[in-house]
């Protein structure tokens, strides 16, 4: 069994989900993915990942609702959550922060390298340079 940190990516957009998966796998993380908030919440409770990357606008259960439910559950309350959102509005960032999100990235400005560095920092793992190619 791998002792690498597990990252849960909850994102309905295939492109970004896949890009995050590959980028984080390159750094040695175990990556699990969910395509909507309901599945994401279920996987978070089952897998208890080391960190969650969470989209806000998703089918079935929104990212904000996922964040609230994670925080209300003692099992998942301590899992760091980083938001991925289209919105650059300060009130949205503040809202996510009030609900306990530890990071907030605006998709249009997203650097996967910076995101990977932040994830590594948050889970206490040294940053690994991106090398080679991950098989699909």
């Amino acid at each position: 069994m791998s002792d690498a940190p597990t990252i849960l990516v909850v994102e309905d957009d295939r492109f970004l989900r896949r890009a995050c998966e590959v980028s984080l796998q390159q750094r040695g993380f175990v990556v699990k993915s969910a395509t909507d908030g309901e599945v994401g919440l279920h996987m978070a409770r089952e897998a208890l990942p080391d960190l969650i990357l969470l989209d806000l606008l998703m089918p079935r259960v929104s990212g904000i609702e996922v964040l609230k439910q994670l925080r209300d559950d003692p099992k998942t309350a301590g899992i760091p959550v980083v938001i991925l959102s289209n919105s650059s509005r300060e009130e949205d960032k503040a809202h996510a922060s009030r609900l306990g999100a530890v990071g907030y990235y605006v998709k249009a400005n997203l650097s996967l390298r910076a995101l990977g560095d932040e994830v590594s920092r948050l889970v206490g793992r040294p940053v690994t340079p991106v090398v080679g190619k991950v098989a699909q």
Partner: protein
Amino acid sequence: MPADRAAADAKLVAERLATLADDTGMTTGELQDMWLAETAERLELAVNALAAGDLSEVVRLVHSAAGTTGICGAAELAQDLTNLEHLAAAGRADDAQRALGSARVEFGLLTSVLHGGLRH
């Protein structure tokens, strides 16, 4: 002019996909194909949702397409999609219909430009 906007976006897309390729180990071609397929599908689903009068679904689909399009550097198209999202969110179905038509034309032009010159 839509063609000028598509050309401007294509230049930015090439730069952005090169960065994303560095960060993922994927090729620009793989990333480009994935993004174009995803966006084409979202726009098609948005047409269907609009025809069905489901504006909240239009908002969700276009919001997602705008996000990915922004990540890939197509700033002009991303802005048009965001405007479309706001029209749909405001319940302005007729304006959203026109904006969706324009966005699809622009996306088609951008796709043509990219297929003409961005392959590794």
